[in-house]
């Protein structure tokens, strides 16, 4: 069983655009850190410019590390409707997995995150996440 507190699961949520989602995440993060919403949004956008965050068809993995985060979080967002145009190069996004890594995080937590990352290399696992039909099954696939 994984450390449940590390995961924040949002199932069947509706977001109209990248901006909509990043703003939402920015607000959540700002409540658990000394980061402002705008700083989170800017950091996520900068990360996109540094390199492609798409890891599979329909799936994005935005992530960053910051000393201003009080705790690390993996926020998994399963979208009710795909975001048809994420940016100029990316479209039809149905699953977004945010990795928010606290600077100087413990080795155990980092290993838990990297183990989850390795799961994301499995296309069958990705397909199951994309096609989950209930919050319960979606959550179980992630935390067990």
């Amino acid at each position, binding site marked *: 069983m994984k450390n449940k507190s590390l995961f924040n699961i949002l199932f069947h949520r509706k977001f109209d655009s990248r901006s909509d989602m990043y703003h939402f995440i920015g607000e959540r993060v700002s409540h658990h850190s000394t980061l402002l919403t705008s700083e989170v949004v800017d950091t996520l956008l900068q990360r996109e410019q540094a390199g492609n965050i798409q890891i599979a068809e329909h799936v994005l993995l935005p992530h960053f590390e910051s000393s201003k985060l009080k705790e690390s979080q993996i926020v998994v967002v399963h979208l009710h409707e795909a975001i048809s145009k994420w940016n100029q190069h990316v479209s039809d996004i149905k699953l977004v997995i945010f990795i928010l890594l606290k600077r100087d995080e413990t080795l155990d937590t980092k290993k838990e995150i990297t183990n989850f*990352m390795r799961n994301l290399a499995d296309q069958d696992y990705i397909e199951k996440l994309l096609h989950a039909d209930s919050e319960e099954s979606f959550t179980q696939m992630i935390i067990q």
Partner: protein
Amino acid sequence: MKIVGVAACTVGIAHTYIAQEKLENAGKAAGHEIAIETQGTIGTENELTKEQITAADIVILAADVKIAGRERFEGKRIIQVPTEVAVKSPNKLIEKAAEVVRNK
């Protein structure tokens, strides 16, 4: 064919480990021996041995940052790509490596 490689990304928490897993799976599925070292936020894992490097036909460096110990691969055939290539097209990357070895 024997393949060794290193995966390393900017934050060292995400692409490094997905790239390693995808490359190893693609390499094994294509019938090759493959070992990918990760250089990430938890340090170096699956560190390549001298024997593995010596025996390798080709080296794949899937890296967005400067890797540690690149000199270990001096004189070897090297393919270097950003991690996103290994993450998005691992099978093509392994095919490309096989092609390079075939055309040596």
